[in-house]
């Protein structure tokens, strides 16, 4: 299926005493195919071999993928449950002792029970993540509500995909990250990419991106930095961080003014055009330029190219989404496709670059504070009823909606939440405004962390439960296309580690809720229950059986039954998911970033990733090759700005905002705006840039504004590097 010009039949190298296990990378939403090399004598993973037959990535991997296998048998793996009796050591690595699973489970059940007796059921919380299988994500939602019986569950997608989800829901009535398969991308005529450092964050998209230009197509990139993809763009819209909404409105205005709107499509398949047309009128190239700092000619040229292109794809990522108007940005860029009708057909559409491996699937099945499996709403009695039937509880037993990820830390601070079960996430590095977040974690009465390495967040835990890596369990994930794919098990769990679903099923027993979980003995058992729970929801996975995934090279949801082959292209029938079948063109007034530069903090701070690290770096900072390539963070400064502060390349500076400060080595580069500085966010303790970032939340997605705040630099005189 979807084999294109990049696909070649290639045999893999097979060494003696080795088998190859087909699977996908553990990290980003690309979910590149890979084969893990397993030694048949030791039954251990020993290396990687390209998976040429995976149609999306045809053997390609970024350096994270190539070295991903080194996580499994790494010296830093936690092999037994750990307990820390001395709470005064919280916030350090010290004081943990090994324990049995029984002791750890018993302690957790005792503490959770005591706290719930004293403060009520909702004193507990679950903070989860989406770098794990759908099965685990699904069960975590059930575990929180049925076993822990708390309303407070949320997940790290609030720092990642929630704005894209909110924007797509509003524009399309459905949240599938891409309206078309990636195998279409190289055949489009124009890629409009906003706020995505694609070459570093989703590198294996790049051969398709370059292929568009090789064919004579166009590449337009909106980014405050001249990233490797922006370097080769036909038009680089070098905007001020946090001003995307103005840029999108400005381009939409030009598309409408210059006759590129598709009147028939707009009339038949959308609502909201007239109102939006009125609103964007104000955004002339000059006015847009004033706000964004992008030259008017570039805005005009970008609109002309996108307007003329027979087929075009609008793409974006965290750059536009991690803002306190992230949802508006998503809908505003999506407007471009809706107004011109470049959607609902092959080679045209809208896509977000999903950050985490299962950022798509993990947000659909009930880890979000207000969602249940199949993208059902916890506030909709019918939805609750449907899920209760699968779970075997009564609707009265279903907890209320909780609050978003960052807001949970606020409730911890206020002692509304007194305990946390943390898994698959490292908020002590990845949350914004870290001084506050770390204090909230430290102040918890009791904290459990399930992880395979001792992360910065695990340093705040009382109990650490050793989980497996992705290669020691099986299940499905949903990649950035919306394609459900299969992760396969290549090795038995190291030491006493266990998959999260097994831990949760066992712990449920200790919490006195075993009867709801005891039938789940294998990952496949969880998969079967999960498919059933999603059935009838609009993220319907019922028909996505493991067999079908294997046969078809993945299954695009929605996939309703055994016969349904899935849905690679969305909206081919021009039917959107709002009740009237129409998409919504949104009129979105511009709002500046929550914190604008001023005299005391004249610079704009933005954050992002480097190609060598993934999220908080808890995994990738431990891999020798990746650490060698990027051992520490740095601050990128334009040479003219550096000259003003009298700082030179590789000197150290103190970077500070109203919320915190950190010291960084300076990297001088002309490939950034003069008013902007950039720091990668993968680093812990006093190197975390999130000590400085602002927790201004989007009103709809509750996404913090990681991508723009006001900062100042101070040169550090003494700390010169040798």
């Amino acid at each position, binding site marked *: 299926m979807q084999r294109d010009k990049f696909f070649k039949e290639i045999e893999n190298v097979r060494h003696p005493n080795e088998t190859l296990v087909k699977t996908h990378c553990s990290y980003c939403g690309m979910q590149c195919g890979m084969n893990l090399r397993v030694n048949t004598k030791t039954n251990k993973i020993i290396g990687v071999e390209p998976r040429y037959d995976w149609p999306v990535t045809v053997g390609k991997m970024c350096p994270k993928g190539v070295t991903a296998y080194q996580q499994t048998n790494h010296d830093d793996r936690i092999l037994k449950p750990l307990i820390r009796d001395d709470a005064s050591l919280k916030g350090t690595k010290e004081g943990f002792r090994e324990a049995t699973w029984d002791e750890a489970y018993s302690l957790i059940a005792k503490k959770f029970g005591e706290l719930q007796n004293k403060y009520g059921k909702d004193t507990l919380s679950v903070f989860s993540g989406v770098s794990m299988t759908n099965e685990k994500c699904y069960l975590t939602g059930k575990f929180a509500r049925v076993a822990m019986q708390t309303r407070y569950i949320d997940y790290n997608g609030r720092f990642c995909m929630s704005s894209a989800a909110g924007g797509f829901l509003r524009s399309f009535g459905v949240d599938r990250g891409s309206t078309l398969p990636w195998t279409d991308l190289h055949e489009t005529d124009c890629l409009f990419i906003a706020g995505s450092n694609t070459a570093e964050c989703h590198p294996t998209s790049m051969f398709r991106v*370059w292929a568009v230009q090789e064919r004579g197509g166009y590449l337009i990139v909106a980014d405050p930095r001249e990233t490797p993809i922006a370097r080769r763009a036909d038009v680089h819209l070098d905007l001020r961080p946090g001003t995307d909404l103005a840029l999108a409105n400005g381009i939409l205005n030009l598309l409408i003014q210059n006759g590129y709107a598709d009147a028939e499509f707009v009339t038949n398949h959308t609502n909201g055009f007239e109102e939006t047309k009125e609103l964007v009128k104000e955004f002339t190239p000059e006015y847009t330029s004033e706000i964004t700092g992008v030259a008017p000619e570039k805005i005009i040229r970008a609109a002309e190219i996108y307007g003329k292109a027979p087929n075009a794809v609008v793409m974006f990522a965290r750059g536009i989404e991690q803002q306190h108007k992230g949802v508006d940005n998503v809908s505003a860029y999506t407007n471009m496709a809706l107004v011109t009708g470049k959607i609902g057909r092959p080679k045209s559409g809208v896509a977000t670059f999903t950050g985490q491996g299962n950022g798509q699937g993990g947000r659909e099945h009930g880890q979000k504070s207000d969602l249940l499996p199949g993208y059902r709403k916890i506030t909709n009695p019918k939805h609750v009823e449907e899920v209760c039937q699968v779970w075997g509880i009564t609707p009265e037993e279903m907890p209320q909606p909780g609050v978003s990820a960052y807001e949970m830390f606020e409730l911890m601070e206020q002692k509304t939440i007194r305990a946390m079960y943390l898994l698959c996430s490292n908020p002590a590095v990845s949350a914004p405004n870290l001084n506050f977040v770390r204090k909230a974690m430290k102040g918890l009465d009791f904290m459990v962390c399930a992880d395979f390495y001792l992360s910065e967040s695990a340093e705040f835990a009382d109990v650490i439960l050793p989980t497996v890596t992705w290669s020691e369990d099986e299940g499905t994930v949903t990649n950035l296309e919306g394609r459900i794919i299969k992760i396969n098990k290549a090795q038995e769990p190291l030491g006493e580690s266990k998959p999260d679903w097994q831990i949760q099923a066992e712990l449920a027993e200790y919490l006195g809720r075993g009867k709801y979980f005891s039938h789940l003995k294998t990952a496949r058992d969880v998969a079967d229950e999960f498919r059933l729970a999603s059935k009838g929801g609009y993220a319907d996975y019922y028909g996505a059986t493991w067999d079908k995934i294997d046969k078809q090279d993945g299954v695009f949801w929605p996939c309703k039954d055994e016969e349904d082959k899935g849905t690679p292209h969305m909206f081919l029938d021009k039917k959107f998911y709002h009740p009237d079948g129409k998409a919504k063109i949104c009129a979105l007034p511009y709002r500046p970033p929550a914190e604008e530069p001023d005299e005391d903090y004249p610079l704009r701070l933005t954050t992002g990733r480097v190609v060598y690290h993934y999220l908080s770096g808890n995994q990738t900072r431990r891999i020798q090759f990746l650490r060698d390539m990027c051992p520490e963070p740095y601050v990128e400064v334009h040479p003219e700005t550096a000259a003003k502060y009298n700082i030179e390349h590789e000197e150290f500076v103190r970077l500070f905002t109203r919320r915190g400060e950190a010291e960084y080595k300076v990297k001088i580069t002309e490939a950034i705006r003069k008013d902007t500085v950039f720091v990668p966010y993968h680093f812990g303790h006093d190197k975390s840039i999130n000590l400085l970032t602002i927790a201004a939340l989007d009103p709809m997605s509750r996404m913090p504004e990681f991508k723009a705040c006001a900062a100042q630099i101070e040169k550090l005189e003494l700390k010169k590097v040798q």
Partner: protein
Amino acid sequence: MKKRLYLELENCIGCRSCLAACTQCGGHEERNRNYVYDVNPLVNRQTMPLMCLHCVNPACARSCPAQAIQIHETGAVLSALVEKCIGCQNCTIACPYGIPKFDTEQNLMYKCDLCIDRTKDGIPPMCASVCPSNTLQWLTDEEIEAKQKQFNLDNGKWVTSMPYLEGETNVRVNLPGILQGVTKLF
């Protein structure tokens, strides 16, 4: 069908996946044999890989007094034979691109062997397999010829050829600037 390593330097995104992949090839002892350079690090993010070009008449092998550098029948210029290499480092100086690396502990030269345990069976080298940007590709001569036609540069010098190189190479290199010759769709 004979295939060659083909480099399209304009595509490089500096991800250094080729370096990571090189450590993964059988017999490479987890040490990479290729390089990626920041072309102008204080100015922009342009990068490019520096690979052994597998010269037809390789200076490295010619300079070796011990005949430690063998040429495989596929044309691949192999890494020094452990039992023959005397550690003189002549090759590291002789190679015009500074490709051979030297292990001072083992007193032994090591270099790109074009992943000979793969390419001898027609399987692409590790670096060209993983390269996310198609900077490194493993192509037939016909495919390379098609590329040559596609990217018809003004000066006719689309690949590194004399006088840019020392001599003929098995690897084909497409210099930065290929897009100049592309006709836009609209």
